[in-house]
């Protein structure tokens, strides 16, 4: 009997704690599929009787949506790729030199508010005449992606055994060969974790875009924010746009959940 009560309590607590997350996204979906008249009705319509796919069509067909989508792809893709190219070897070097203290720079980067980078770098980009291109955003996204990659890779390389690398060195391999053929293949799962987190945090970034992006160089989060002022009252297209922007991240989270959890908690616990 007590067991049963405990189980009942647990189930109730589970529903209470999980439902805000689930219901929010269902409500988002519901808003994005309704006609304006249903979105503006009180009491709210939860499950619409007629579905308005037009909200999605309106967003995708809107003038610059595709530009913004490709801007986001380019910025996130370049910032992540570049972070991996320089961050994975750096994580390896720091782990092998046992120079974890040097990671204090990464800690400082983690603590510093994103806006603080924006002021000096904005002036620098202005001086270099880069404003109006995607370069400023690609470069400043490195502030987010490089520390993530280095931090995660230090953790992974610290746990991979040294014996194989030592014997490869004795066999006359160069340090580059050791890294390329011994260390890198073992750390593949770590690279996957670094890649996924880097993509998500770069994709989601908003603060850099609002300052650095012009009309042609907006990323999706900035574009969605700019929709608010134009479409104050039509919730359907707004919700559809919001869902389109965040859908890739939501899917990635569901499918790569194990890597995400590993990456986030590894960074947190160490």
């Amino acid at each position, binding site marked *: 009997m007590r067991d049963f009560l405990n189980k009942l309590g*647990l189930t109730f*607590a*589970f529903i209470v*704690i*999980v439902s805000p*997350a689930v219901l*929010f*996204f269902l*409500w988002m979906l519901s*808003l994005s599929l309704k006609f304006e008249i249903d979105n503006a*009705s*009180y*009491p709210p319509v939860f499950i619409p009787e007629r579905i308005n796919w037009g909200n999605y069509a309106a967003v995708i067909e809107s003038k610059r949506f595709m530009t913004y989508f490709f801007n986001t792809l380019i910025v996130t893709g370049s910032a992540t790729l570049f972070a991996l190219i*320089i961050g994975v070897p*750096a994580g*390896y*070097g*720091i782990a*092998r*030199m046992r120079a974890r203290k040097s990671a204090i*720079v990464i800690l400082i*980067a*983690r*603590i*510093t*508010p994103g*806006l*603080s*980078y924006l*002021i*000096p770098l*904005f002036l*620098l980009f202005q001086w270099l005449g880069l404003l109006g291109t995607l370069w400023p955003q690609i470069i*400043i996204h*490195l502030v987010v992606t*490089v520390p993530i990659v280095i931090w995660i890779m230090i953790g992974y390389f610290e746990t991979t055994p040294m014996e194989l690398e*030592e014997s490869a*060195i004795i066999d006359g391999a160069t*340090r580059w060969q050791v890294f390329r053929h011994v260390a890198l293949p073992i750390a593949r799962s770590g690279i996957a974790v670094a890649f996924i987190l880097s993509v998500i945090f770069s994709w*989601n970034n*908003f*603060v850099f875009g609002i300052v650095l992006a012009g009309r042609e160089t907006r990323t999706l*989060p900035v574009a*969605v924010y700019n929709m*608010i002022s134009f479409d104050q009252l039509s919730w359907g297209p*707004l*919700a559809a*746009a*919001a869902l389109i*922007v965040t859908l890739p*991240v*939501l899917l*990635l*989270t569901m499918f790569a*959940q194990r890597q*995400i*959890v590993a990456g986030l*908690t590894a960074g*947190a*616990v160490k």
Partner: protein
Amino acid sequence: MSELTAGKAPAKTATAAEITTARKEQWRPISYWPFVIPAMIVVMAVIIFPWVYTIWMSLHEWKVGQAPTFVGFANYLRLPSDARFVESVGHTLVYTALSVALPLILGTLAAVIFNNKFPLRGFFRGLFILPMMATPVAIALVWTMMFHPQLGVLNYLLSLFGLPPSLWVFHPATAIPSLVLVETWQWTPLVMLIVLGGLSAIPTEPYESAQIDGATPWQTFRYISLPMIMPFLFIAAMIRMIDAVKSFDIIFAITQGGPGSASETINLYLYSVAFVYYDVGYASAIVVVFFALIVALAGALLHLRQRTHWNEAGGSA
């Protein structure tokens, strides 16, 4: 058998030692600097340079488009008498305190729940962490609609429980609590993940003996789980504090610091000074003080941990 091993053992050790020295000799010249240098250059360019430049700018009176003039610490001395800045510090502290405490409590509760075995646990954990991974601006947009005083779903939900409607983010008194609600919804999962890591490391024996002794679930949590997860709670509190102080996207997208300046935190004020008024000298001084505040808060948390022996509690239990 034992004689054989005994006879061979010294020879073996000798070779092993030789190999070790040989390895060391070959190992020493291997330098890892080439792996680190490219990253160091990038870190210098995008992290160190902005910091140095910020400190330099903070000592100058400089509006974008004009020439900078050296003014010493004048920008810093301006801060205490800037009512809007002082007010924003207060908002930041209230916002941060609530945004640490609430996710910590709810996240621990969620971790205790997720520490049980139940069907589809992995799937539900995935759903549960969606709020913290989803694009903050997209979320903020939907919350803004939900906060709408007339058509918003939240006031409808309140009415279901017989509660009076609220103005949420549209009233100065409820703006910060409403934003904290979003922040809590968003970041409770992170606390859950960290605490869950701590819970799953606890051996099962203490729980089994507690059950035999007839302990209630609360007693089991209070005297077995809680002492063991204290170090994890500390880490969660630290991360939460750092993120809450810096919170920008949610506040900017939902209230922009309003109504009036009711929800203007330091970060929001900093944005206005830098990119609305283009007063980069003064903004840089705010950045430096803001960073010092974050470090001070982190130091205070560390001090608190030492005072209450959070770490040792884990060991003694």
